[in-house]
C-alpha cells in the first residue's frame, strides 16, 4: 500500500517536473520568495543600522545638552532619550506595520501626549503601496500561483485525449495526489527562502515552525479549493474565472469591506482632540493659581504633598507638575484611543477568519512581532520609560537638589526589553 503510494508520488513528481508550464510556476514562486526575503533582509539590516546610528547621535546630543545645564529642571527639559523597537529575527518576513506605525521616538520629560503621537514614518507614497515581503508573497501571490497552476489539471488531459482513460483507471485519488503534489510544491518554493533567511538571522525554531505551518496550510487550502473547483466544471476558463473571483472576494473585497465596517463600528477619539486638550491644560496652567495645579498633581502623587509650595512665578517642579497634569487630563481620551485601536485590531483578527489571505498575513506579522499588538506594546514601554524618567527627576526637583554630574549618569536608560507596566491606570 505504502509502496504503491510512494510509487505514484514518484511518478507524479516526474510528470510535474517534465511540464514546462509547471516548471515555470515553481520558478516564479521561488524567485518571488527569494526577492521578497532578500528585500526584507536588506530593510531589516537598514533598520538595525539606523538604530545604531541614532543611538550614537542620541548619546552625543544628550551629553552636549546636559553639559550646559545648571539645574535638574533644565537638564530634564533639554535631555531627550531615544526609544526604539528593534526588528525581531523574523521581521524580514513580514515588515508589517513598521512602515505606517512608528517604531522609534525621542522622548523627554515634558507631557508625553504631546510627543508620543509624533510619527517618524517612511515616505507616505511608499507606505501606500506596501512592501514586497514574504508575508505578501505567501498571503496574496501564493494563492494566485496555485490557481493558475492547478485550474486546468483535467482540461489538459482532456485536450490530450487521455481524460476518459484516466477517469476509468482511477477513483479520484489521482487528482488529489496530482493537485496536492503541485500545490504543495509551490508552497515549498515560497517557504524555503523564508526558512533559509530565518536560519541565517537566528530566528527561534518555534517561529520557523509557525512560519512553515502557516505557509503550507495556506498552500494546502487553495490546493483543495482548486481540486474541488476543477472537478465541478468542464471548462478550464470557467474554473479559472471562478477561482480568481473567489480569490478576489476573499483576499481583496472582504478585507476592504470588513475594514471599512470595523472602522465605522469602532470610532476613535480624534487624535486632534487629545493633543488639543493636552495643550489647553498645559497652557492654562500658566494662568491658574499654582495651588490648583499642585493639588491636582498631589492627588496623583501623594508622596510629594509636603513639597508643593511654589514661591516664585516660575519653578521647575511646578512646570513639570502641570505637564503631568496635562497628561492626566488627556489620559481618558488617550486610553480610549488605545483601546479603540486594540478593539479594531481584535475585530480585524476575527474577520480575518473569513479571508485566508488576511489570516496568513496577520499570522506572519504576529510571529514576526510586527503586528498592531507589537506596536502598541512598544508604545506602552515608551510610556513606562517616561514614567521612569519622572520617577528619577521628581525627588530631585521637589527636594530642590543641586545638579550633580555624577548622578545624571544614573538617568534611566531605554532598553527594548523594558517591561511595559502601565504607569497609571
Amino acid at each position: 500500500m505504502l509502496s504503491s503510494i510512494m510509487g505514484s508520488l514518484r511518478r507524479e513528481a516526474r510528470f510535474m517536473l517534465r511540464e514546462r508550464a509547471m516548471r515555470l510556476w515553481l520558478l516564479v514562486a521561488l524567485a518571488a520568495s527569494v526577492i521578497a526575503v532578500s528585500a526584507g533582509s536588506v530593510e531589516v539590516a537598514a533598520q538595525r543600522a539606523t538604530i545604531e546610528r541614532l543611538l550614537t547621535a542620541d548619546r552625543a546630543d544628550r551629553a552636549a545638552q546636559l553639559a550646559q545645564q545648571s539645574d535638574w529642571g533644565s537638564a530634564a527639559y533639554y535631555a531627550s532619550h531615544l526609544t526604539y523597537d528593534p526588528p525581531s529575527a523574523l521581521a524580514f518576513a513580514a515588515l508589517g506595520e513598521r512602515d505606517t506605525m512608528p517604531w522609534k521616538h525621542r522622548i523627554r520629560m515634558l507631557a508625553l501626549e504631546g510627543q508620543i503621537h509624533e510619527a517618524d514614518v517612511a515616505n507616505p507614497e511608499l507606505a501606500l503601496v506596501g512592501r514586497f515581503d514574504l508575508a505578501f508573497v505567501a498571503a496574496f501571490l501564493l494563492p494566485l500561483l496555485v490557481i493558475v497552476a492547478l485550474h486546468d489539471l483535467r482540461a489538459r488531459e482532456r485536450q490530450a485525449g487521455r481524460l476518459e482513460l484516466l477517469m476509468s483507471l482511477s477513483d479520484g485519488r489521482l487528482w488529489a495526489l496530482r493537485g496536492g503534489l503541485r500545490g504543495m510544491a509551490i508552497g515549498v518554493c515560497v517557504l524555503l527562502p523564508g526558512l533559509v533567511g530565518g536560519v541565517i538571522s537566528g530566528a527561534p525554531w518555534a517561529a520557523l515552525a509557525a512560519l512553515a505551518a502557516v505557509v503550507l496550510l495556506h498552500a494546502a487550502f487553495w490546493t483543495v479549493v482548486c481540486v474541488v473547483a476543477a472537478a465541478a466544471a468542464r471548462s478550464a476558463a470557467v474554473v479559472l474565472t471562478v477561482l480568481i473571483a473567489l480569490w478576489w472576494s476573499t483576499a481583496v473585497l472582504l478585507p476592504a469591506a470588513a475594514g471599512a465596517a470595523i472602522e465605522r463600528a469602532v470610532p476613535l477619539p480624534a487624535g486632534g482632540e487629545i493633543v488639543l486638550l493636552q495643550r489647553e491644560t498645559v497652557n492654562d496652567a500658566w494662568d491658574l493659581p499654582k495651588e490648583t495645579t499642585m493639588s491636582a498633581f498631589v492627588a496623583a502623587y501623594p508622596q510629594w504633598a509636603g513639597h508643593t509650595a511654589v514661591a516664585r512665578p516660575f519653578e521647575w517642579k511646578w512646570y513639570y507638575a502641570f505637564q503631568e497634569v496635562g497628561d492626566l487630563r488627556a489620559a481618558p481620551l488617550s486610553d480610549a484611543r488605545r483601546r479603540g485601536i486594540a478593539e479594531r485590531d481584535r475585530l480585524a483578527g476575527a474577520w480575518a477568519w473569513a479571508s485566508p489571505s488576511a489570516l496568513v498575513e496577520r499570522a506572519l506579522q504576529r510571529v514576526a512581532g510586527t503586528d498592531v499588538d507589537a506596536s502598541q506594546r512598544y508604545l506602552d514601554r515608551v510610556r513606562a520609560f517616561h514614567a521612569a524618567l519622572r520617577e528619577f527627576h521628581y525627588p530631585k526637583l521637589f527636594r530642590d537638589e543641586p545638579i550633580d554630574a555624577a548622578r545624571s549618569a544614573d538617568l534611566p536608560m531605554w532598553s527594548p526589553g523594558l517591561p511595559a507596566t502601565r504607569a497609571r491606570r
Partner: protein
Amino acid sequence: MRQVLRIARDEWRQWSRSRLAWVSSALLLLVLVSTAVLTFLQVAQETEARSALQRQAHDTFLSQPARHPHRMVHYGHYVFRSPSPLAAFDPGLDPVTGQTLFLEGHRQNTAAFAAAAAGARLGGLPALSPAVVYQLFVPLLLIVLGYGAVARERESATLMPLLMQRVSGGTLVAGKLWALGATALLLTLPVAAIGLWATIAGDSGWAALGVAALCALYLLAWCAIIVAVSAVFRSRHSALAALAALWIAAAWVVPAVSVDAAARTQPVPGKIDTDLRMLAELREVGDGHNAAAPAFARLREDLLAQHGVERPEDLPVNLRGVVAQHAEAKLTRVLDRYADERMAGETAQAHAARSFGWLSPVVAFATASRALAGTDLDNHHRFMREAEALRFRFVQALNRIHAEQLAYTDDIARSRDAEAERRTRVDPSAWRVLEEFRFRPASVATRLQSAAPALFMLLAWLSLALAACAWSARRLETSP
C-alpha cells in the same frame, strides 16, 4: 468600417449569452457604485470635520487671554489638511499621511494622526476607492470579457471562414477592439459623474476631465493588450492564463517591487535621524530664550552701538524680543534647509518608484490619478510648506510684539516679580496676527504637470499594445 461594427455587434451578442459575463459585470458595477458612494461620504465627512476643527483651532487661538507674547509662540496653532473634492475619486496619500500639524515656535513638527496607523488591518490594500477599482479591477473585468475575443473564433474554427469572407485580419481585430473599447468607455461614465460632482463642489473641471480621460486612456490600453494576447495564443484557455499572469505581475508584483527598489536605491533618512544631525548644527545658532548667550553677543553689541547706548535697559526696543526674532529667523533657515532636503529625498524616492510605470501600466495609472486628484506627495509637501510659512509669520509677528511692546526691565524681572510679570502680558487683540489657514487644492496646471510623465507612459503603453494588435492581425492572415 461597417464590417468592423458588425464584428463588434457579434462580439456583444456573444457576451450577452454568457452568464459569466453578466455575473462579473454585475458584481463589478456593484463594487464600483458602493465604493464610489462610500468614498464620497467619507471625503465629505472628513472635509467637514477638518474645516470645523480648523475654525475651532483658529477661534481658540484668538480667544486666549492676555499673556506674554512668547507664551503664545509656545501655545502654538493647529492646521488641518482638507482633502480636494476629487479625493472622492482617489484619496491617494490622504489616509497614510497625518492630517494635522502642530505649529509652534522653534520647531517644525511632523503631521500626526494618519488614519492608516489606527485602522483595522486585514492586509492587502489600504482601502477601496473608485481609483483602486479602476486601477485593479476594471481591467480584470475586461480580461474576463475579452480574453476569448479572437481565441474563441480560432478555437471554434470560425476564424478561417471569417477570414475567407474577405474580412481582413485587421478588420477582425479592429472589430474586437471596438467591442471591448466601447465597453471600457462606457465604464468610465461613473468617473464622469464623480468628476461632475467634484466640479460642483469647487474642484477644477479640467482636472475632473483629466481624471476621466486618464481612465479612458488606461482602460483602452488594457483593451488593446487583451485583444493582442487573445489573437496571439492558440487556445482561449492559454490566452486567459497569460492575461491572468500579466495582471498579477502588473497589479501586484511590479508595484510592490517598485517600493523596495525605491527604498533601496534612494534611501531617505528618517525624521529623528535628520533631527539629531540638525540639533548638532543648531547648537551653533544658540538658544533664543537666552539673550545673554554668546551666540547673540554680536547682535547685542551691534544693537547697543546702533542706538548709542551702554545698557540693554536703555534701548528703545526689548533686547529679548529682538534676540527671539533673530534666533527664530536663523533657526528657521536651518530647519527649512533640512525640511527641503528631506522633501527632495522623498520626491526622488517617489520618482524612482514611479519610473516602474514603464513596466506596469497600473503604476503609471496610480501616479497620474493621484496627481490629477490632487492627493499626491507634492500636495502633502505643499501642505507642509504652507503650514510652515504660516508658522514663521505668526511666530515672528509675536516676536515683533515682544520686541516693540514689552519693557526689557519687566521682561527680565518677570520670573521673580509678579507685578512685572503682569505688565508683560499684552492685550488679546494682539493674537489677531494669526492668519486664517485655508489649504486649497493645487492648480490644474500643477496637477497636469506632475501627471504628465505618467500620462506619457500610458500613451506609450497604448501605442505599444495597438502595435501588438496590428502585428497579431497580420499574423492571423499568414498563420490563422
